[in-house]
């Protein structure tokens, strides 16, 4: 397979080529190819069931592709690794449905996400350190949940949970962030703040955002990829993509 790899791949942060996934005969991902450059932010749009979440499942090792290459940082074949190994490589993920540890405090959620030694022995004998506290304070500040630090994550509003999960991604300090529908259930102001936050994060990290909210996507002002039936339908600036006839037909409507 290595001979088939496009030489471009070596410089890409994320490189998908000819990826296929079938669930019980249903082709969820169909010859998907995508290249994300280091430091890029990419917005992924597309109708429900287009395969956006499945694409993230493939990148993070939750779903194994039947066929195709998935490379991270130009060299690492992600299809051979499991979720834990992929997370350790530096790929963080926010789920479509906000997934935080509801019965633990906001602070503890971030503590668990911190990029630290994840082995059993080190966590058993772990001692709170100033560096950890500082890192948590910094994230709390960024996601504006400083006042809620001792609250149980389960008691947060939907929007706050989304932010906490983004905060967990920040604490994890990955090279690549995959963010699935971050503004679902947010007010307009929160949506705007989230766009600002993601732009700030993108200063030193590569980001892939899946989102339906076109105002939000427009605000991000980045290259857009539209997925449909498991493959790329159109790619380009938001204006190019939203002017594309096929995109209008299957996704945006007239």
């Amino acid at each position, binding site marked *: 397979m290595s001979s088939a790899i496009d030489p471009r791949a070596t410089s890409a942060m994320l490189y998908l080529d000819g990826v296929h996934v079938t669930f019980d005969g249903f082709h969820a991902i169909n010859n998907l190819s995508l290249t994300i450059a280091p430091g890029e932010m990419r917005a992924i749009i597309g109708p429900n069931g287009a395969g956006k979440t499945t694409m993230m499942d493939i990148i993070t090792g939750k779903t194994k592709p039947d066929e195709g290459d998935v490379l991270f940082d130009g060299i690492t074949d992600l299809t051979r690794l499991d979720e834990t190994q992929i997370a350790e490589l530096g790929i963080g993920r926010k789920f479509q449905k906000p997934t935080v540890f509801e019965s633990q405090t906001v602070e503890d959620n971030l503590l668990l996400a911190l990029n630290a030694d994840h082995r059993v022995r080190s966590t058993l004998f772990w001692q709170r350190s100033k560096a950890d506290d500082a890192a948590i304070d910094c994230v709390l500040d960024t996601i504006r949940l400083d006042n809620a630090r*001792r609250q149980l994550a389960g008691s947060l509003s939907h929007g706050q949970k989304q932010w906490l999960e983004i905060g967990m991604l920040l604490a994890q300090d990955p090279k690549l962030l995959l963010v699935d529908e971050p503004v679902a259930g947010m007010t307009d102001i929160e949506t705007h703040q989230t766009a600002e936050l993601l732009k700030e994060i993108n200063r030193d990290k590569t980001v892939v955002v899946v989102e339906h909210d076109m105002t939000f996507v427009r605000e991000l002002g980045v290259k857009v990829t539209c997925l449909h039936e498991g493959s790329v339908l159109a790619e380009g600036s938001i204006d190019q993509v939203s002017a594309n006839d096929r995109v209008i037909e299957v996704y945006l409507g007239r």
Partner: protein
Amino acid sequence: MRHTLTRSLDRSATTFLLIVAGAGILLPLSNLLLPASSPLHVPTYVMTLFGKYVCYAVLALSIDLIWGYCGILSLGHGAFFALGGYAMGMYLMRQIGPRGVYADPVLPDFMVFLNWKTLPWYWYGFDMFWFAILMVVLVPSLLAFCFGWLAFRSRVTGVYFSIITQAMTYALLLAFFRNDFGFGGNNGLTDFKDLLGFNVQASGTRAALFATSCLLLALSFLMCRAVVRSKLGKILIAIRDAESRTRFLGYRVESYKLFVFTLSACIAGLAGALYVPQVGIINPSEFAPGNSIEAVIWVAVGGRGTLVGAALGAVVVNYAKTLFTSGALAPYWLFMLGALFILVTLLLPKGLVGTWYAWREGRQRAALSLDADSAAFEDSGVKPHMAE
């Protein structure tokens, strides 16, 4: 806010430890020092009965550690308890020596009865106490480690995991029933004479066993508590609540499960080892799948994920069992246990202690907001009028 909460939780842990220590010291003293006529005298049989409950409480703690904190529902934990019990039973059998019915200096009676000429290799070493204790710890842990390694690595979870743990204990039940398996078959191991040179029937030994059980309960409690309050404990809860989220943060979930499952089996084995000299027998019925399910009910009744509740649940349910099964209601005990389980699940899903914690936390919240209100009043120079 959280500080008040942790402080008061510390208080309940302290209370628990004081009660266990008090029982562990006072019951044996009253049994040994007070005359039988004294109203405060605790008869030996009562002390032994409570010793049994204390061992069950340790088993319940071990189940709570994995189920309450990590969401692993083992319906086969009785097997680890029984294996610890068998290891201790083997030591006690070897201590009988030539005092058996057949007076063989080495072979236990049941082997002579089966016409065996030599001691099977797996009985070697059990004449030494330290070796037996090593096996009490090692055998259940090793089984749990191998079983867990296979199950967790293949991501067997939820009800599937529970079912295979039932199958495991059932398979052991069948194996231990066989005479040629070499553990006394149907009858198991019994007629023990002495432990470390002390007569197991003597009040003094009984008192020491009771005190040791309380010590084991206290130590297991402290250990489980240390585990669940460490960062690892937070990861266990994270696995319980959102397993795949935990994986995507870079934790190797199966290693955590394996660690806590093995630790739990080890604690269960120690409980079984102290149980056997007190009840005087270990037989294959200890592996019965129903036993393991009963133990899970104790934890549910007391309060899952509270440790204190698990121990309390074991004592309360078993005390009730003793009361009911010795009276006219005996045939209905299983129905009552089932009804209790359903009632608790429906009405008190957090169990006795869990419900109490929730209620107390609610009151503390209310008190805190009241404080905040009165502080606000004082700030504005108005004294709140409150009936106290």
